[in-house]
Each structure stands twice: as C-alpha cells, then as structure tokens.
C-alpha cells in the first residue's frame, strides 16, 4: 500500500471538512439558545421539544414515512418480478436492449424531467378521474416509477451472481415454476431483494424533486416542509428538524452497510 504525502492528506482532510462543515453548523445551531441570529447563547434542547408539539411537522413526518413504506413495498415486488423476467428467459438481443433502455431511463434522465412528465401525465389523467389531484397517490406513483428501476438493477445483479445451477438442479428434480420461484430462486436472491428494498426506501426518503412536483397541499413531506420553511426564514426549529433527519440518515446508512456486508459473506 502506498503512503500518501502531506499535501494529499491536507487536501483530503480539508475536503472532508468542506463536506461536513455545513452539516456541523446545522447541528450546532440547533442547540443554540437564541431565536434569531447566529451568536452562541448557551445550550438548549427547547427547539427539539417544540418540534414534538408542532402538528404540521409531525404530519409531514408521517407523510414521509407512509410514502416511503408504501412505494418501497410496491416497487420491491414489481422490481423483483421484473428482474427475474429479464434475467431468466432467452430474450433476443434486440428485445433485451430495448428492455434495458426502458429500465435505465429513470436512472439516467435528470429527475426534473421525470417530474415534469408526471405533472403532464397526471394533468391529463385528471380529465378522466379526480383521483389524480396532486397528493399522496401521485407521489406514491412517482416514487415507485423511479424505484422500480433501481430495485430491478440490484436484484438482477444478484441473479447474475447466483447463477442458474441450483435452479437447473431443481428443474431436473421436477420442480414446477411456482415451486421453483418460491423455494429456490427467492431464497437465493433474498439478500439482493433486501438490498434493493433498502435502496428504494432510502431513495424515497431522500427524494425532493419528484415529491415537490406531485405533492398536494396536505401531503407535504419533511424535505418539502424544510424547503418551504427556509425560503421564508431560517429558524432554530428547522435546524433541529434537519439534525434529526441527518441522524436518521446516519442510522439508515450504517444499517444498510451492515446488511449488505452480511449478505456478501453469506
């Protein structure tokens, strides 16, 4: 292993500081006992306690989690079935390329284009049914649309890694297709499915653009709430909320890493 020079080390540490300085500032001022301004007035947890009594924020938190859970469930099921269909059947080269392109579309296009397309589509669907008023249903649909692709890609790479040997063996022993999927394929690819679901969940929690374009007045998520709030004025309450979101992210990242490392060992 190569040693790094002083300049490289310095630059690297500065870059890490550059990434964390703003986040540290948010955490720091979330425990500052001053309603206005950025002068240290002593430690307090008041802003956190105030959060718990703010109905709007609690609603936004519930919306965020509801959206993430529902969209992750649906997209994990759809994405997994899609990945099996893509990987386990002898598609001709041409149709495989076409399918691949559709699958990669949500991954490569800027999310604002997907959001714009969804706004237009829901606008046209509204002419048919009032279900598609901006709100939770539209947000769930939007999230599933980009999550499916990510889940399918993760599960497909697991399918590739597992190989077909065991499935062939099961076939030789006269396993029917449903039996094969339930008792052979699914247990084998489970780590991939879990990893895909975790990815989908994190993507949903993290998303701002798609939610922002499809949300209704009573379905704001935490990122939307924070965005709207900081455009007016920045308060210590928002810092406290952001710090909590930050902590949740850290927990989720560490948990995901643990799970994916364990699934690699298994």
């Amino acid at each position: 292993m190569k040693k790094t020079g002083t300049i490289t080390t310095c630059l690297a540490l500065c870059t890490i500081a550059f990434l964390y300085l703003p986040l540290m500032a948010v955490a720091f001022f979330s425990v500052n006992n001053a309603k206005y301004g950025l002068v240290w007035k002593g430690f307090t947890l008041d802003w956190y306690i105030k959060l718990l009594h703010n109905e709007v924020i609690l609603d936004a938190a519930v919306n965020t989690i509801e959206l993430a859970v529902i969209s992750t469930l649906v997209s994990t099921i759809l994405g997994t079935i899609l990945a099996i269909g893509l990987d386990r059947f002898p598609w001709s080269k041409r149709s495989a390329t076409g399918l691949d392109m559709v699958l990669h579309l949500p991954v490569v296009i800027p999310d604002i284009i997907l959001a714009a397309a969804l706004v237009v589509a829901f606008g046209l669907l509204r002419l048919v049914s009032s279900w598609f008023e901006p709100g939770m249903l539209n947000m769930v649909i939007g999230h599933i649309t980009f999550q499916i692709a990510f889940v399918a890609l993760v599960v497909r790479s697991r399918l590739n890694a597992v190989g077909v040997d065991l499935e062939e063996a099961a076939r030789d022993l006269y396993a029917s297709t449903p039996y094969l999927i339930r008792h052979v394929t699914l247990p084998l690819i489970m780590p991939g499915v879990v990893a895909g679901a975790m990815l989908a969940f994190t993507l949903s929690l993290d998303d701002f653009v798609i939610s922002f374009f499809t949300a209704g007045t009573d379905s704001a998520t935490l990122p939307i709430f924070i965005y709207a709030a900081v455009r007016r004025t920045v308060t210590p309450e928002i810092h406290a909320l952001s710090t909590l979101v930050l902590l949740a992210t850290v927990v989720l990242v560490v948990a995901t890493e643990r799970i994916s490392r364990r699934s690699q060992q298994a």
Partner: protein
Amino acid sequence: MHKVIIWYGELTSVRSLLRRGLLFLSPGMAWLMVFLVIPGLALVAVSFTTRGAYGELVWTFSLENYSRLAGFGMFGWTSDYLLIIGRSILVASVTCAVAVLLSYPLCFFIAARPLRTRYLWLTMLVIPFWTNMVIRSYAWFLILAPELPLAKFAAMLGIVAPGSPLYPSAFAVYLGMVSLYLPFVALPLFASVEKLDWTLVEAAQDLYASRTMIFFHAILPQTLPGLSVGVILTFVPAMGMFVVPDLLGGAKYMLVGNLVQQQFSSSRDWSFGAAISMGLMALTMCSLYFYRKKSNGGQVL
C-alpha cells in the same frame, strides 16, 4: 420459434418459454410504460402545443415554444434563455471538474488508510451522499451568514457590504453544487482507486516519469471506469438542478432547472416547460453520447 429446446433441464419450446417470460415482465414493464414512457411521450406532445389564456393547453401544433427558447420572444430576440442554458452547462462542467480535482486526493487518502479504519472513512463519504439535498443546500446559509468569519472576511476585502450574507450569489451556487455532488464523484472513483495496481506507478517512477506523466499514463487510465461513472452521476443531475440555485443563487443565478420549475408552478405554462425539458433532455443525451464516444464506450452505463 417452434424449435424444441432444453431450458433449465426442462423440455420446452422457445415460444412457450417466452410467453412465460412475458408474464414476469408484464407487471413491471406495464408500470414503466404507463407512468414513464407514455408520460414522456405526452411531454414531447405538450411541448408542441401552446398555452391558453388561463394556463390550459391549446392542442394546435406549433413550434412557438422552441423558438421562444431560442430567444425569439414577443418583443424581438433576447439572449435570456440561451444565457441560462449556457450557464447551466458551465455550472455543471465546473462542478464536475472541481469535484474530480478534490476527489482524487481524497480517494488516495482513504485508500491508504489501514483496513480497519478505511471503512469508517468511507462511511464519512456515504453519509453526505445520502443526506437530503435541501438540508445540505440550506446549511450553507449558516456558513455564509454575515455573523460568521467568511462573510466578515469578504466584507473586509470589500467584496460584499458589511453585515450582508454571501448568498445569493454565483459563488454560493458553486459552493453548494460542489459540496452536493462531491460524494457522487468520489464514491465511484474510490472503487477504482482501491483496485489500483501500484506496480505500474512504480514502473513509471523507475523510468523517470514526471508527476504529471505518472498521473496521465499510470493512474488515469486505471481509474477511468470509476471516474466515468462519477462524472455522469454528477453532470446529468447537475444540469437539471434547481434546489441549489433557487436557495443559494436567487433570481440572479438561474439555471435550466429553475426555468422548468417556474413553468410548472408560478407561470403555469406547461407547453413552454415541456419544451425546456426537451432541450434539457437533448443536452443530457448529447453529453452521454459524447462521453461514451470519448471513453471508447467503456464501462459507462
């Protein structure tokens, strides 16, 4: 098509097998068709319509939105929109370049840590990667606030008036963009740097290569796969970004993303918004194509 084949040890025909495969594909693909491909086509169609008096769509074919985007407005030609497009390309390019420049030392530093602490350092990169961009953008409000040293220093130099923050400004936009996208470059790059074959670097050193030569001939080719992924992961979303310029740039430093967002909210001009989206899409495709060609169709997506 009726050929009998053996598939997973089962005697079957291609046709019946593909029929079964279609069963697996259909739910997911149907979803993507209804909520991705058809909306995409609808967006293309809408970009050729015009806006009615109340923001409704008037379904007559017209190229008005595109000519408006090119600057031919109601009151003669203006460079406003083209300026915004050019600025978006510039911001995305600069963001990419700075992120790459900062990522190399960072990746080398992390790769040189002993195995025990290396994943700890790597987690330090993964956390900002997953932290919400709204929070990471507005967090700069604090760093750039007038009470803090950075703004005081700038005021001392006479760059800004004393007591005023360093945002909204172009500088703040670049700061926000680079810090937002740095992990998107560094993480894929690290995957390549970790696997770097140092014997090639030593060989170059033995042959008296200069430091620049070593980088371009021994390090860059080996890290190109990770670098390509990182650049694409940064450049494409950076082109359509609207949160950072909205919060840190204000009306002074608008990007294409803000323009699209405006049409779909306050201006309520979907047809023009759709046309701008098409322009953004074309730019994205161009840069992907250009990049793929330049990196010889390597492992880029």
